[in-house]
């Protein structure tokens, strides 16, 4: 889809970058909303002014946030924070767009991980489509690669899909430091959030592998976070990484989406293998039926990186 009119919900790192980069991709932002306000203009909002006001005053405009849902747009970009369980309010935002036969592009993992079947049902009754490349692996084109191959030609996905945990493990291995020390460093650098629970307990990675399982199952089966076996990295002492290194191995928080289910946990992998990416890099390995393994690696988080996936999704939508 070219020259799309976008309504962007959520003005965190990703939503803000989508607003900033939309013009470069040939799209127009006609509405933007955060949790307390909205800016709406059918001819395109003044993105610089809106983002400046957000930075200065904490609001994007004078309208009620719900007004953005009723604005003129072709594609709703759902970039509000991920919520679990009923995945609200993200789910209702998408439902609203599909009910009026518009498209929805998600950066919010909640609805795709927790209510995949409901989403696909709404989509089936709508002229609009949903896409969610940005929910898995930031800038890395994973969902679209699976689309290209066809889900029935991919038997499993595994890899590293949480940059914070990967940063911590690779720093622990490289510097011989303990978990708490490296976590504090990661928080100083902005790599880890003040509350890192989602990342270090493996929940964020699990949500992404649940989404991949849903995509790979292609409607035959539906997965939610409850179906995943999840273990984090908080109990790993520095000595474990030392012992692994002595044997030419290292530890990574590895996720797997296989016919056996979804599993995320710290695993021993060869030090020089493809899955031992360092720092905040992500990698996904797809097991294909006729072409062995495909490794795709890149930046799995960050505003502009994830916005790239959102805007590529908008381009992929078919009118």
């Amino acid at each position, binding site marked *: 889809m070219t020259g799309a009119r976008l309504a962007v919900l959520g003005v965190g790192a990703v939503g803000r970058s989508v607003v900033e980069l939309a013009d470069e991709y040939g799209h127009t932002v006609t509405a933007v909303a955060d949790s307390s306000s909205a800016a709406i203009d059918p001819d395109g909002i003044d993105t610089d002014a809106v983002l400046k006001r957000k930075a200065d005053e904490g609001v994007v405009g004078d309208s009620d946030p719900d007004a953005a849902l009723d604005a003129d747009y072709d594609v709703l970009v759902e970039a509000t924070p991920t919520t679990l369980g009923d995945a609200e309010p993200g789910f209702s935002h998408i439902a609203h767009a599909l009910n009026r036969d518009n498209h929805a592009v998600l950066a919010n993992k909640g609805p795709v991980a927790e209510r995949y079947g409901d989403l696909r049902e709404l989509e089936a009754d709508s002229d609009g489509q949903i896409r969610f490349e940005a929910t898995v692996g930031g800038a890395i084109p994973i969902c679209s690669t699976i689309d290209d191959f066809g889900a029935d030609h991919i038997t499993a996905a595994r890899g590293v899909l949480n940059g914070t945990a990967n940063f911590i493990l690779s720093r622990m291995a490289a510097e011989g430091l303990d978990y708490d020390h490296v976590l504090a460093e990661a928080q100083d650098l902005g790599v880890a959030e003040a509350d890192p629970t989602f990342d270090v307990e493996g929940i964020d990675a699990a949500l992404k592998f649940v989404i991949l399982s849903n995509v790979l199952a292609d409607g035959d089966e539906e997965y939610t976070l409850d179906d995943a076996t999840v273990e984090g990295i908080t*109990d*790993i*002492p520095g000595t474990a990484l030392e012992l692994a290194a002595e044997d030419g191995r290292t530890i990574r928080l*590895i996720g797997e989406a296989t016919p056996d289910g979804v599993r995320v946990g710290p695993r021993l992998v060869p030090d020089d293998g493809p899955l031992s990416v360092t720092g905040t890099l992500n990698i996904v390995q797809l*097991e294909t039926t006729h072409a062995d393994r495909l490794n795709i690696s890149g930046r799995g988080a960050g505003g502009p990186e994830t916005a790239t996936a959102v805007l590529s999704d908008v381009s992929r939508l078919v009118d």
Partner: protein
Amino acid sequence: MSDTTGESQTHTIRLELVDEPGELLGALEPISEAGGNLMSIYHERGNVTPRGHIPVEVDVSCAPDRFERIVDSLREGGVNVIQAGSERYDEELVVLLVGHLVDTDLSDTLQQVEACANASLTDLSLSAPRGNDDSSSARLRLKTKSGTTDAVLSTLREIADGKDLHVIEPLTEGTQ
């Protein structure tokens, strides 16, 4: 022409030896005399059986009928043969155990691992920090019978769960 019947295959013999000079050599002689090809000897010197003997694991390659002759002559020579069979430990498995290994009786943990029918512990590295409060780590190298990796891992998880330890398992697929 060979005077034996059947193809050569590898057999594992598990012996218990008295800890005295010459015992190992004495046990190995019947093997070479019977024409068995000695593949490997694993001498667990640090590990003593409840009877105070030293377990030794020997891999021998020979034809099945010769293998029986070897086991018979070992027994005739007074060697304690615990297990003799054609099943072979031919897969290696490396796992890490982390947690309060020392406080939870490491030697008991290892004995439980050794009791696992499909695996044999071949190497152990322990890294324990000075204080008792911190958790420590151990790297276990196991030989497992082919096709039993999942079962062995599941047993290891059970042993670890019972002591509130964590097993860091290898990713066996997709690491090439």
